[in-house]
Protein backbone atom coordinates (compact mmCIF):
# COMPACT_ATOMS: atom_id res chain seq x y z
CA UNK A 1 0.00 0.00 0.00
CA UNK A 2 1.37 3.38 -0.87
CA UNK A 3 -0.06 6.64 0.38
CA UNK A 4 3.32 8.29 0.36
CA UNK A 5 3.51 11.63 -1.33
CA UNK A 6 6.69 13.58 -1.88
CA UNK A 7 4.82 16.68 -2.87
CA UNK A 8 4.75 19.91 -0.92
CA UNK A 9 2.57 19.66 2.14
CA UNK A 10 0.68 22.75 1.13
CA UNK A 11 -0.05 21.68 -2.41
CA UNK A 12 -3.27 19.89 -3.22
CA UNK A 13 -1.98 17.10 -5.38
CA UNK A 14 -4.56 14.88 -6.98
CA UNK A 15 -4.17 11.18 -6.57
CA UNK A 16 -1.00 11.23 -4.54
CA UNK A 17 -2.00 12.92 -1.31
CA UNK A 18 -3.53 10.66 1.29
CA UNK A 19 -7.21 11.15 2.04
CA UNK A 20 -9.62 9.69 4.57
CA UNK A 21 -11.61 8.19 1.71
CA UNK A 22 -8.52 6.40 0.35
CA UNK A 23 -7.77 4.91 3.75
CA UNK A 24 -11.34 3.63 3.98
CA UNK A 25 -11.14 2.20 0.47
CA UNK A 26 -7.66 0.69 0.85
CA UNK A 27 -8.88 -2.41 2.60
CA UNK A 28 -6.32 -1.99 5.38
CA UNK A 29 -7.83 -3.07 8.67
CA UNK A 30 -6.47 -2.02 12.03
CA UNK A 31 -6.35 -4.58 14.81
CA UNK A 32 -7.98 -3.66 18.12
CA UNK A 33 -4.84 -2.31 19.83
CA UNK A 34 -3.67 -0.36 16.79
CA UNK A 35 -7.14 1.11 16.42
CA UNK A 36 -7.13 2.24 20.04
CA UNK A 37 -3.72 3.84 19.47
CA UNK A 38 -5.03 5.62 16.37
CA UNK A 39 -7.86 6.98 18.51
CA UNK A 40 -5.38 8.50 20.96
CA UNK A 41 -3.59 10.33 18.15
CA UNK A 42 -6.77 11.19 16.27
CA UNK A 43 -8.66 12.51 19.28
CA UNK A 44 -5.79 14.86 20.14
CA UNK A 45 -5.84 16.26 16.62
CA UNK A 46 -9.64 16.54 16.57
CA UNK A 47 -9.92 18.38 19.88
CA UNK A 48 -7.16 20.84 19.03
CA UNK A 49 -8.68 21.47 15.61
CA UNK A 50 -12.02 22.16 17.26
CA UNK A 51 -10.39 24.66 19.64
CA UNK A 52 -8.37 26.42 16.92
CA UNK A 53 -11.39 26.66 14.63
CA UNK A 54 -12.93 29.03 17.16
CA UNK A 55 -10.20 31.59 16.37
CA UNK A 56 -11.45 32.09 12.83
CA UNK A 57 -12.73 35.70 12.55
CA UNK A 58 -11.31 36.47 16.01
CA UNK A 59 -7.55 36.46 15.36
CA UNK A 60 -5.32 39.47 16.11
CA UNK A 61 -4.65 40.04 12.40
CA UNK A 62 -6.12 38.83 9.13
CA UNK A 63 -3.00 36.83 8.28
CA UNK A 64 -3.44 35.02 11.59
CA UNK A 65 -7.05 34.12 10.78
CA UNK A 66 -5.65 32.40 7.72
CA UNK A 67 -2.77 30.75 9.60
CA UNK A 68 -4.83 29.40 12.51
CA UNK A 69 -7.55 28.15 10.18
CA UNK A 70 -4.88 26.42 8.15
CA UNK A 71 -3.42 24.67 11.18
CA UNK A 72 -6.91 23.69 12.35
CA UNK A 73 -7.61 22.31 8.90
CA UNK A 74 -4.39 20.27 8.85
CA UNK A 75 -5.21 18.81 12.27
CA UNK A 76 -8.74 18.01 11.18
CA UNK A 77 -7.25 16.18 8.21
CA UNK A 78 -5.01 14.13 10.52
CA UNK A 79 -7.99 13.37 12.76
CA UNK A 80 -9.99 12.16 9.77
CA UNK A 81 -7.19 9.82 8.62
CA UNK A 82 -6.70 8.40 12.10
CA UNK A 83 -10.36 7.99 13.02
CA UNK A 84 -11.10 6.43 9.65
CA UNK A 85 -8.30 3.95 10.17
CA UNK A 86 -9.34 3.25 13.79
CA UNK A 87 -12.90 2.66 12.59
CA UNK A 88 -11.79 -0.20 10.32
CA UNK A 89 -11.36 -2.33 13.45
CA UNK A 90 -15.02 -1.97 14.42
CA UNK A 91 -16.80 -1.25 11.13
CA UNK A 92 -17.32 2.38 12.11
CA UNK A 93 -16.86 5.57 10.11
CA UNK A 94 -14.90 8.66 11.13
CA UNK A 95 -18.22 10.36 11.87
CA UNK A 96 -19.50 7.47 14.01
CA UNK A 97 -16.39 7.88 16.13
CA UNK A 98 -16.34 11.68 16.21
CA UNK A 99 -20.04 12.31 16.78
CA UNK A 100 -21.43 9.27 18.54
CA UNK A 101 -18.85 8.36 21.17
CA UNK A 102 -19.44 9.50 24.72
CA UNK A 103 -17.17 11.80 26.65
CA UNK A 104 -15.37 9.02 28.53
CA UNK A 105 -14.73 7.09 25.31
CA UNK A 106 -12.47 9.80 23.90
CA UNK A 107 -8.72 9.51 24.56
CA UNK A 108 -7.55 13.09 24.08
CA UNK A 109 -5.05 14.63 26.46
CA UNK A 110 -6.03 17.62 28.57
CA UNK A 111 -3.54 19.99 26.90
CA UNK A 112 -5.50 20.08 23.63
CA UNK A 113 -8.81 20.41 25.47
CA UNK A 114 -7.82 23.59 27.27
CA UNK A 115 -9.77 26.73 26.42
CA UNK A 116 -8.15 29.08 23.93
CA UNK A 117 -7.66 31.88 26.44
CA UNK A 118 -5.83 34.84 24.93
CA UNK A 119 -3.45 34.56 21.98
CA UNK A 120 -0.55 33.95 24.37
CA UNK A 121 -2.20 30.88 25.86
CA UNK A 122 -3.16 29.54 22.44
CA UNK A 123 0.41 29.97 21.24
CA UNK A 124 1.77 28.28 24.37
CA UNK A 125 -0.47 25.29 23.69
CA UNK A 126 0.55 25.33 20.01
CA UNK A 127 4.24 25.43 20.86
CA UNK A 128 4.08 22.46 23.19
CA UNK A 129 1.77 20.35 21.09
CA UNK A 130 3.43 20.98 17.73
CA UNK A 131 6.89 20.24 19.14
CA UNK A 132 5.56 17.03 20.69
CA UNK A 133 3.80 16.04 17.46
CA UNK A 134 6.91 16.75 15.43
CA UNK A 135 8.98 14.37 17.55
CA UNK A 136 6.19 11.83 17.48
CA UNK A 137 5.59 11.82 13.73
CA UNK A 138 9.32 11.94 12.94
CA UNK A 139 9.47 8.54 14.63
CA UNK A 140 6.07 7.19 13.58
CA UNK A 141 7.08 7.35 9.90
CA UNK A 142 9.05 4.18 10.73
CA UNK A 143 6.03 2.38 12.16
CA UNK A 144 5.67 -1.23 11.05
CA UNK A 145 2.03 -0.41 10.37
CA UNK A 146 2.02 0.91 6.79
CA UNK A 147 -1.08 3.07 7.20
CA UNK A 148 0.17 4.76 10.36
CA UNK A 149 3.54 5.35 8.68
CA UNK A 150 1.86 6.94 5.67
CA UNK A 151 -0.32 9.15 7.85
CA UNK A 152 2.74 10.21 9.85
CA UNK A 153 4.64 11.08 6.71
CA UNK A 154 1.86 13.35 5.46
CA UNK A 155 1.26 14.91 8.88
CA UNK A 156 4.93 15.53 9.55
CA UNK A 157 5.26 17.94 6.64
CA UNK A 158 2.38 19.99 7.98
CA UNK A 159 3.45 19.89 11.62
CA UNK A 160 6.78 21.25 10.48
CA UNK A 161 4.96 24.48 9.60
CA UNK A 162 2.92 24.42 12.80
CA UNK A 163 5.99 24.36 15.00
CA UNK A 164 7.63 27.11 12.99
CA UNK A 165 4.49 29.26 13.35
CA UNK A 166 4.36 28.69 17.11
CA UNK A 167 8.06 29.26 17.72
CA UNK A 168 8.07 32.46 15.65
CA UNK A 169 5.22 33.81 17.76
CA UNK A 170 6.82 32.79 21.05
CA UNK A 171 9.88 34.84 20.07
CA UNK A 172 7.77 37.83 19.06
CA UNK A 173 5.64 37.76 22.16
CA UNK A 174 8.51 36.96 24.51
CA UNK A 175 10.78 39.69 23.14
CA UNK A 176 8.10 42.15 21.96
CA UNK A 177 6.63 44.35 24.69
CA UNK A 178 6.38 44.09 28.46
CA UNK A 179 2.74 43.14 28.15
CA UNK A 180 3.32 40.50 25.50
CA UNK A 181 6.11 38.94 27.52
CA UNK A 182 3.89 38.84 30.61
CA UNK A 183 1.00 37.29 28.67
CA UNK A 184 3.19 34.74 26.90
CA UNK A 185 4.65 33.67 30.25
CA UNK A 186 1.14 33.45 31.73
CA UNK A 187 0.12 31.29 28.77
CA UNK A 188 2.96 28.87 29.39
CA UNK A 189 2.21 28.80 33.13
CA UNK A 190 -1.44 28.11 32.42
CA UNK A 191 -0.93 24.95 30.35
CA UNK A 192 2.41 23.61 31.54
CA UNK A 193 1.03 21.19 34.12
CA UNK A 194 -0.59 19.25 31.26
CA UNK A 195 2.69 18.67 29.41
CA UNK A 196 3.51 15.51 31.35
CA UNK A 197 0.41 13.69 30.10
CA UNK A 198 1.85 13.76 26.55
CA UNK A 199 4.71 11.56 27.72
CA UNK A 200 2.74 9.07 29.79
CA UNK A 201 2.84 5.48 28.55
CA UNK A 202 -0.86 4.65 28.61
CA UNK A 203 -2.25 1.38 27.28
CA UNK A 204 -2.46 0.05 24.60
CA UNK A 205 0.75 1.81 23.45
CA UNK A 206 2.88 -0.32 25.76
CA UNK A 207 1.73 -3.48 23.96
CA UNK A 208 2.25 -2.26 20.42
CA UNK A 209 6.02 -2.51 19.97
CA UNK A 210 7.25 -1.05 16.69
CA UNK A 211 3.76 -0.15 15.52
CA UNK A 212 3.69 2.80 17.92
CA UNK A 213 6.05 5.33 19.47
CA UNK A 214 6.37 5.01 23.24
CA UNK A 215 5.42 8.46 24.63
CA UNK A 216 8.02 8.40 27.43
CA UNK A 217 10.79 8.23 24.82
CA UNK A 218 9.62 11.57 23.42
CA UNK A 219 9.98 13.44 26.72
CA UNK A 220 13.64 14.35 26.58
CA UNK A 221 13.98 15.48 22.96
CA UNK A 222 10.71 17.42 23.07
CA UNK A 223 11.46 19.16 26.36
CA UNK A 224 15.00 20.02 25.23
CA UNK A 225 13.72 21.78 22.17
CA UNK A 226 10.95 23.51 24.09
CA UNK A 227 13.41 24.79 26.70
CA UNK A 228 15.61 26.18 23.95
CA UNK A 229 12.86 28.27 22.36
CA UNK A 230 11.45 29.44 25.69
CA UNK A 231 14.87 30.59 26.85
CA UNK A 232 15.63 32.24 23.53
CA UNK A 233 12.41 34.24 23.99
CA UNK A 234 13.62 35.42 27.40
CA UNK A 235 10.86 33.50 29.15
CA UNK A 236 11.11 30.91 31.90
CA UNK A 237 10.24 27.27 31.74
CA UNK A 238 7.49 26.92 34.36
CA UNK A 239 8.70 25.08 37.43
CA UNK A 240 5.78 22.75 38.13
CA UNK A 241 5.06 19.09 38.18
CA UNK A 242 2.40 17.43 36.06
CA UNK A 243 -1.26 17.59 37.04
CA UNK A 244 -2.66 14.46 38.61
CA UNK A 245 -4.65 12.12 36.39
CA UNK A 246 -2.44 11.97 33.30
CA UNK A 247 -4.25 9.01 31.75
CA UNK A 248 -6.31 10.51 28.89
CA UNK A 249 -9.42 9.00 30.47
CA UNK A 250 -11.49 12.16 30.60
CA UNK A 251 -12.16 11.55 34.29
CA UNK A 252 -9.83 14.42 35.18
CA UNK A 253 -11.11 17.07 32.80
CA UNK A 254 -14.07 19.46 32.67
CA UNK A 255 -13.42 20.75 29.17
CA UNK A 256 -14.08 17.68 27.07
CA UNK A 257 -17.82 17.65 27.74
CA UNK A 258 -18.29 21.22 26.56
CA UNK A 259 -16.30 20.65 23.38
CA UNK A 260 -18.33 17.56 22.53
CA UNK A 261 -21.67 19.13 23.46
CA UNK A 262 -21.08 21.76 20.80
CA UNK A 263 -19.40 19.55 18.23
CA UNK A 264 -21.95 16.73 18.37
CA UNK A 265 -25.20 18.62 18.85
CA UNK A 266 -26.44 18.71 15.27
CA UNK A 267 -25.29 15.25 14.21
CA UNK A 268 -26.98 13.72 17.27
CA UNK A 269 -30.24 15.51 16.65
CA UNK A 270 -30.48 13.66 13.32
CA UNK A 271 -29.07 10.18 13.88
CA UNK A 272 -28.62 8.24 10.66
CA UNK A 273 -28.93 11.33 8.46
CA UNK A 274 -26.56 12.00 5.57
CA UNK A 275 -25.06 15.47 5.23
Amino acid sequence: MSFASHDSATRQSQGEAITAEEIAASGATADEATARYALILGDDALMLSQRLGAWVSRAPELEEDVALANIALDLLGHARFLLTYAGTAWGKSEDDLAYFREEEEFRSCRLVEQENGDFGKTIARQLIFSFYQHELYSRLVHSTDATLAAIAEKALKEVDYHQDHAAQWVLRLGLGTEESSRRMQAGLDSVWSYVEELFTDVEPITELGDVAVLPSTLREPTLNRLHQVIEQADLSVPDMSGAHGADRSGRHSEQRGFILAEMQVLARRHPGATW
Partner: protein
Amino acid sequence: MSPQNHQHAPLRLADEADAAAARDEAESGQHRFDEIIADDSRIEPRDWMPESYRKSLVRQVSQHAHSEIIGMQPEGNWISRAPSLKRKAILMAKVQDEAGHGLYLYSAAETLGTPREDMYDQLYSGKAKYSSIFNYPARTWADVGAIGWLVDGAAIVNQVPLCRASYGPYGRAMVRICKEESFHQRQGWEILYSLSHGTQEQREMAQAAVDRFYGPALQMFGPPDGDSPNSQQSMAWNIKRFTNDELRQRFVDMIVPQVEALGLTLPDPELKWNEERGHYDFAELDWDEFFAVIKGNGPLSRQRLEHYRSARDEGAWVREAAVAYANRVSQEQDRDQAALIGA
Protein backbone atom coordinates in the same frame (compact mmCIF):
# COMPACT_ATOMS: atom_id res chain seq x y z
CA MET B 1 14.57 95.86 -5.62
CA SER B 2 15.03 95.09 -1.94
CA PRO B 3 16.85 91.89 -1.02
CA GLN B 4 13.57 90.61 0.33
CA ASN B 5 11.81 91.13 -2.97
CA HIS B 6 14.75 89.76 -4.75
CA GLN B 7 14.30 86.53 -2.84
CA HIS B 8 10.55 86.38 -3.32
CA ALA B 9 10.35 86.96 -7.01
CA PRO B 10 12.04 83.79 -8.24
CA LEU B 11 10.17 81.75 -5.61
CA ARG B 12 6.87 83.02 -6.87
CA LEU B 13 7.96 82.25 -10.36
CA ALA B 14 8.96 78.76 -9.29
CA ASP B 15 5.55 78.23 -7.60
CA GLU B 16 3.80 79.33 -10.71
CA ALA B 17 6.00 77.14 -12.84
CA ASP B 18 5.23 74.17 -10.57
CA ALA B 19 1.54 74.89 -10.72
CA ALA B 20 1.68 75.16 -14.50
CA ALA B 21 3.62 71.92 -14.72
CA ALA B 22 1.06 70.22 -12.47
CA ARG B 23 -1.73 71.57 -14.67
CA ASP B 24 0.03 70.24 -17.75
CA GLU B 25 0.57 66.89 -16.12
CA ALA B 26 -3.07 66.70 -15.07
CA GLU B 27 -4.16 67.59 -18.56
CA SER B 28 -1.96 65.06 -20.26
CA GLY B 29 -2.76 62.58 -17.50
CA GLN B 30 -6.49 63.05 -18.00
CA HIS B 31 -5.99 62.71 -21.74
CA ARG B 32 -4.05 59.48 -21.33
CA PHE B 33 -6.59 58.19 -18.76
CA ASP B 34 -9.48 58.89 -21.12
CA GLU B 35 -7.65 57.05 -23.88
CA ILE B 36 -7.09 54.00 -21.71
CA ILE B 37 -10.74 53.92 -20.70
CA ALA B 38 -11.87 54.41 -24.30
CA ASP B 39 -9.61 51.51 -25.38
CA ASP B 40 -11.12 49.41 -22.59
CA SER B 41 -7.58 48.88 -21.37
CA ARG B 42 -6.18 48.90 -17.84
CA ILE B 43 -5.16 51.61 -15.39
CA GLU B 44 -2.20 50.56 -13.23
CA PRO B 45 -1.18 51.94 -9.80
CA ARG B 46 1.51 54.32 -11.14
CA ASP B 47 -0.72 55.75 -13.86
CA TRP B 48 -2.26 59.17 -13.41
CA MET B 49 -5.94 58.92 -12.52
CA PRO B 50 -8.62 61.43 -11.53
CA GLU B 51 -9.04 61.79 -7.77
CA SER B 52 -12.71 60.89 -8.08
CA TYR B 53 -11.82 57.60 -9.82
CA ARG B 54 -9.31 56.81 -7.07
CA LYS B 55 -11.80 57.62 -4.32
CA SER B 56 -14.60 55.68 -5.91
CA LEU B 57 -12.39 52.62 -6.31
CA VAL B 58 -11.09 52.75 -2.75
CA ARG B 59 -14.69 52.91 -1.58
CA GLN B 60 -15.79 49.97 -3.69
CA VAL B 61 -12.75 47.74 -3.13
CA SER B 62 -12.62 48.35 0.62
CA GLN B 63 -16.37 47.72 0.97
CA HIS B 64 -15.84 44.49 -0.86
CA ALA B 65 -12.93 43.59 1.47
CA HIS B 66 -15.02 44.44 4.55
CA SER B 67 -17.81 42.21 3.24
CA GLU B 68 -15.40 39.28 3.08
CA ILE B 69 -14.23 39.93 6.64
CA ILE B 70 -17.67 40.35 8.20
CA GLY B 71 -18.86 37.50 6.00
CA MET B 72 -16.58 35.15 7.91
CA GLN B 73 -18.84 35.45 10.96
CA PRO B 74 -22.18 33.91 9.94
CA GLU B 75 -20.58 30.79 8.48
CA GLY B 76 -17.70 30.74 10.93
CA ASN B 77 -20.23 30.22 13.69
CA TRP B 78 -21.03 26.77 12.22
CA ILE B 79 -17.47 25.45 12.06
CA SER B 80 -17.73 24.04 15.58
CA ARG B 81 -21.09 22.35 14.91
CA ALA B 82 -20.74 21.10 11.32
CA PRO B 83 -22.54 17.73 11.19
CA SER B 84 -19.71 15.68 9.64
CA LEU B 85 -15.93 15.97 9.66
CA LYS B 86 -15.84 16.33 5.90
CA ARG B 87 -18.34 19.19 5.97
CA LYS B 88 -16.37 20.76 8.80
CA ALA B 89 -13.18 20.65 6.73
CA ILE B 90 -14.89 22.13 3.66
CA LEU B 91 -16.49 24.91 5.69
CA MET B 92 -13.23 25.74 7.45
CA ALA B 93 -11.45 25.98 4.11
CA LYS B 94 -14.20 28.20 2.76
CA VAL B 95 -14.12 30.65 5.66
CA GLN B 96 -10.34 30.68 5.37
CA ASP B 97 -10.71 31.57 1.68
CA GLU B 98 -12.81 34.55 2.72
CA ALA B 99 -10.01 35.83 4.93
CA GLY B 100 -7.73 35.37 1.92
CA HIS B 101 -10.09 37.34 -0.31
CA GLY B 102 -10.11 40.11 2.26
CA LEU B 103 -6.31 40.15 2.08
CA TYR B 104 -6.17 40.37 -1.73
CA LEU B 105 -8.74 43.15 -1.76
CA TYR B 106 -7.16 45.22 1.00
CA SER B 107 -3.88 44.86 -0.91
CA ALA B 108 -5.52 46.01 -4.14
CA ALA B 109 -6.95 49.04 -2.32
CA GLU B 110 -3.53 49.76 -0.79
CA THR B 111 -2.10 50.21 -4.30
CA LEU B 112 -4.39 53.26 -4.50
CA GLY B 113 -2.58 54.82 -1.55
CA THR B 114 -4.94 53.97 1.32
CA PRO B 115 -3.22 52.00 4.11
CA ARG B 116 -4.95 48.85 5.34
CA GLU B 117 -5.00 50.30 8.85
CA ASP B 118 -7.18 53.22 7.65
CA MET B 119 -9.67 50.83 6.09
CA TYR B 120 -9.76 48.77 9.29
CA ASP B 121 -10.46 51.96 11.24
CA GLN B 122 -13.38 52.81 9.00
CA LEU B 123 -14.91 49.40 9.52
CA TYR B 124 -14.21 49.58 13.25
CA SER B 125 -15.87 52.98 13.63
CA GLY B 126 -18.95 51.79 11.75
CA LYS B 127 -18.44 54.35 8.96
CA ALA B 128 -17.63 51.79 6.28
CA LYS B 129 -20.35 49.81 4.61
CA TYR B 130 -20.28 46.12 3.81
CA SER B 131 -22.76 43.81 2.13
CA SER B 132 -25.95 43.93 4.18
CA ILE B 133 -26.60 40.21 3.74
CA PHE B 134 -24.09 39.44 6.50
CA ASN B 135 -26.28 41.21 9.04
CA TYR B 136 -28.71 38.31 8.84
CA PRO B 137 -28.26 35.32 11.17
CA ALA B 138 -27.08 31.86 10.07
CA ARG B 139 -29.36 29.90 12.37
CA THR B 140 -29.32 26.40 10.94
CA TRP B 141 -26.91 24.18 9.06
CA ALA B 142 -29.08 24.67 5.97
CA ASP B 143 -28.33 28.38 6.19
CA VAL B 144 -24.69 27.52 5.51
CA GLY B 145 -25.90 25.84 2.32
CA ALA B 146 -28.17 28.75 1.38
CA ILE B 147 -25.39 31.25 1.97
CA GLY B 148 -23.05 29.27 -0.27
CA TRP B 149 -25.60 28.77 -3.01
CA LEU B 150 -27.44 32.11 -2.99
CA VAL B 151 -25.05 34.60 -1.41
CA ASP B 152 -21.89 33.33 -3.09
CA GLY B 153 -23.93 32.75 -6.23
CA ALA B 154 -25.05 36.38 -6.27
CA ALA B 155 -21.48 37.44 -5.51
CA ILE B 156 -20.23 35.53 -8.55
CA VAL B 157 -22.78 37.15 -10.86
CA ASN B 158 -21.68 40.51 -9.49
CA GLN B 159 -17.99 39.76 -9.60
CA VAL B 160 -17.37 37.97 -12.88
CA PRO B 161 -17.76 41.25 -14.82
CA LEU B 162 -15.43 42.90 -12.30
CA CYS B 163 -12.61 40.68 -13.54
CA ARG B 164 -12.56 43.14 -16.45
CA ALA B 165 -12.64 46.22 -14.21
CA SER B 166 -10.47 49.02 -15.60
CA TYR B 167 -8.26 49.13 -12.50
CA GLY B 168 -5.66 46.37 -13.00
CA PRO B 169 -5.01 45.18 -9.41
CA TYR B 170 -8.75 44.99 -8.67
CA GLY B 171 -9.54 43.06 -11.85
CA ARG B 172 -6.70 40.61 -11.23
CA ALA B 173 -7.72 40.04 -7.60
CA MET B 174 -11.24 39.33 -8.83
CA VAL B 175 -10.06 36.60 -11.20
CA ARG B 176 -8.69 34.55 -8.34
CA ILE B 177 -11.60 35.35 -6.05
CA CYS B 178 -14.14 34.27 -8.68
CA LYS B 179 -12.44 30.90 -9.09
CA GLU B 180 -12.73 30.24 -5.38
CA GLU B 181 -16.26 31.61 -5.17
CA SER B 182 -17.44 29.10 -7.72
CA PHE B 183 -16.23 26.30 -5.41
CA HIS B 184 -18.09 27.99 -2.58
CA GLN B 185 -21.29 28.14 -4.52
CA ARG B 186 -20.98 24.51 -5.46
CA GLN B 187 -20.43 23.45 -1.84
CA GLY B 188 -23.51 25.43 -0.80
CA TRP B 189 -25.60 23.82 -3.51
CA GLU B 190 -24.30 20.38 -2.49
CA ILE B 191 -25.23 20.97 1.15
CA LEU B 192 -28.75 21.89 0.09
CA TYR B 193 -28.92 18.94 -2.30
CA SER B 194 -28.00 16.49 0.48
CA LEU B 195 -30.58 18.08 2.75
CA SER B 196 -33.36 18.21 0.17
CA HIS B 197 -32.75 14.52 -0.58
CA GLY B 198 -32.45 13.59 3.10
CA THR B 199 -34.98 13.16 5.89
CA GLN B 200 -38.21 15.15 6.10
CA GLU B 201 -36.67 17.36 8.78
CA GLN B 202 -33.58 18.04 6.67
CA ARG B 203 -35.76 18.92 3.71
CA GLU B 204 -37.78 21.37 5.75
CA MET B 205 -34.60 22.91 7.09
CA ALA B 206 -33.36 23.42 3.51
CA GLN B 207 -36.60 25.01 2.30
CA ALA B 208 -36.76 27.34 5.30
CA ALA B 209 -33.20 28.51 4.65
CA VAL B 210 -33.92 29.22 0.96
CA ASP B 211 -37.08 31.09 1.99
CA ARG B 212 -35.10 33.29 4.36
CA PHE B 213 -32.11 34.04 2.14
CA TYR B 214 -33.81 34.52 -1.24
CA GLY B 215 -34.92 38.14 -0.76
CA PRO B 216 -31.77 39.39 0.95
CA ALA B 217 -29.63 37.63 -1.71
CA LEU B 218 -31.47 39.44 -4.51
CA GLN B 219 -30.91 42.70 -2.67
CA MET B 220 -27.16 42.11 -2.76
CA PHE B 221 -27.14 43.66 -6.24
CA GLY B 222 -28.03 46.99 -4.68
CA PRO B 223 -31.04 49.25 -5.03
CA PRO B 224 -33.04 49.46 -8.28
CA ASP B 225 -31.21 51.34 -11.05
CA GLY B 226 -33.29 54.48 -10.45
CA ASP B 227 -32.02 54.69 -6.86
CA SER B 228 -28.37 53.87 -7.50
CA PRO B 229 -26.48 57.17 -7.71
CA ASN B 230 -22.95 55.78 -8.14
CA SER B 231 -23.68 53.22 -10.84
CA GLN B 232 -23.57 55.47 -13.88
CA GLN B 233 -20.17 57.01 -13.21
CA SER B 234 -18.81 53.60 -12.29
CA MET B 235 -19.98 52.22 -15.62
CA ALA B 236 -18.50 55.16 -17.53
CA TRP B 237 -15.14 54.30 -15.95
CA ASN B 238 -15.43 50.63 -16.95
CA ILE B 239 -15.40 49.54 -13.32
CA LYS B 240 -18.96 48.29 -13.38
CA ARG B 241 -20.18 46.67 -16.61
CA PHE B 242 -23.86 46.02 -15.96
CA THR B 243 -26.53 47.78 -13.92
CA ASN B 244 -27.88 46.44 -10.62
CA ASP B 245 -31.15 45.40 -12.20
CA GLU B 246 -29.45 43.67 -15.12
CA LEU B 247 -27.33 41.61 -12.77
CA ARG B 248 -30.29 40.82 -10.53
CA GLN B 249 -32.24 39.54 -13.54
CA ARG B 250 -29.29 37.44 -14.66
CA PHE B 251 -29.12 35.90 -11.17
CA VAL B 252 -32.82 35.05 -11.01
CA ASP B 253 -32.62 33.46 -14.46
CA MET B 254 -29.68 31.39 -13.22
CA ILE B 255 -31.15 30.13 -9.94
CA VAL B 256 -34.63 29.09 -11.13
CA PRO B 257 -33.43 25.92 -12.90
CA GLN B 258 -31.02 25.29 -10.01
CA VAL B 259 -33.77 25.40 -7.39
CA GLU B 260 -35.78 22.99 -9.51
CA ALA B 261 -32.85 20.59 -9.55
CA LEU B 262 -32.73 20.85 -5.76
CA GLY B 263 -36.41 19.97 -5.56
CA LEU B 264 -37.07 23.14 -3.57
CA THR B 265 -39.01 26.31 -4.36
CA LEU B 266 -38.31 30.05 -4.29
CA PRO B 267 -40.61 32.08 -2.03
CA ASP B 268 -42.12 34.26 -4.78
CA PRO B 269 -45.62 33.48 -6.08
CA GLU B 270 -45.14 35.97 -8.93
CA LEU B 271 -42.10 34.22 -10.29
CA LYS B 272 -42.78 33.02 -13.83
CA TRP B 273 -41.16 32.80 -17.25
CA ASN B 274 -41.89 35.74 -19.52
CA GLU B 275 -41.70 34.52 -23.10
CA GLU B 276 -41.66 38.02 -24.54
CA ARG B 277 -38.77 39.27 -22.43
CA GLY B 278 -36.94 35.97 -22.45
CA HIS B 279 -36.49 36.30 -18.68
CA TYR B 280 -38.22 35.35 -15.48
CA ASP B 281 -40.52 37.96 -13.94
CA PHE B 282 -40.27 38.28 -10.19
CA ALA B 283 -41.95 40.30 -7.45
CA GLU B 284 -40.74 43.67 -6.19
CA LEU B 285 -38.42 43.23 -3.21
CA ASP B 286 -38.92 44.75 0.22
CA TRP B 287 -36.77 47.85 -0.23
CA ASP B 288 -37.79 49.33 3.13
CA GLU B 289 -36.14 46.35 4.75
CA PHE B 290 -33.09 46.80 2.53
CA PHE B 291 -32.59 50.45 3.44
CA ALA B 292 -33.17 49.72 7.14
CA VAL B 293 -30.47 47.04 7.08
CA ILE B 294 -28.10 49.27 5.08
CA LYS B 295 -28.53 51.97 7.73
CA GLY B 296 -27.28 49.59 10.40
CA ASN B 297 -30.56 48.15 11.64
CA GLY B 298 -30.17 44.63 10.33
CA PRO B 299 -31.01 41.80 12.74
CA LEU B 300 -27.34 41.34 13.68
CA SER B 301 -25.69 44.59 12.54
CA ARG B 302 -24.58 45.47 16.03
CA GLN B 303 -23.43 41.96 16.87
CA ARG B 304 -21.29 41.71 13.72
CA LEU B 305 -19.59 45.02 14.41
CA GLU B 306 -19.04 44.28 18.09
CA HIS B 307 -17.51 40.91 17.20
CA TYR B 308 -15.12 42.64 14.79
CA ARG B 309 -14.25 45.33 17.33
CA SER B 310 -13.59 42.95 20.17
CA ALA B 311 -11.29 40.83 17.98
CA ARG B 312 -9.43 43.99 16.97
CA ASP B 313 -9.20 45.22 20.58
CA GLU B 314 -8.14 41.88 22.01
CA GLY B 315 -5.46 41.48 19.36
CA ALA B 316 -3.93 44.94 19.80
CA TRP B 317 -1.22 43.76 22.20
CA VAL B 318 -0.19 41.02 19.76
CA ARG B 319 0.19 43.46 16.88
CA GLU B 320 2.16 45.84 19.10
CA ALA B 321 4.47 43.01 20.11
CA ALA B 322 5.06 42.04 16.47
CA VAL B 323 6.03 45.64 15.63
CA ALA B 324 8.28 45.96 18.69
CA TYR B 325 10.00 42.70 17.80
CA ALA B 326 10.53 43.77 14.19
CA ASN B 327 12.07 47.07 15.36
CA ARG B 328 14.29 45.26 17.79
CA VAL B 329 15.53 42.85 15.14
CA SER B 330 16.22 45.62 12.64
CA GLN B 331 18.13 47.61 15.30
CA GLU B 332 20.20 44.55 16.10
CA GLN B 333 20.92 44.06 12.42
CA ASP B 334 21.99 47.72 12.12
CA ARG B 335 24.31 47.29 15.12
CA ASP B 336 25.78 44.12 13.68
CA GLN B 337 26.35 45.84 10.38
CA ALA B 338 27.97 48.85 12.09
CA ALA B 339 30.23 46.51 14.05
CA LEU B 340 31.15 44.75 10.84
CA ILE B 341 32.05 48.02 9.12
CA GLY B 342 33.97 49.16 12.23
CA ALA B 343 35.96 45.93 12.21
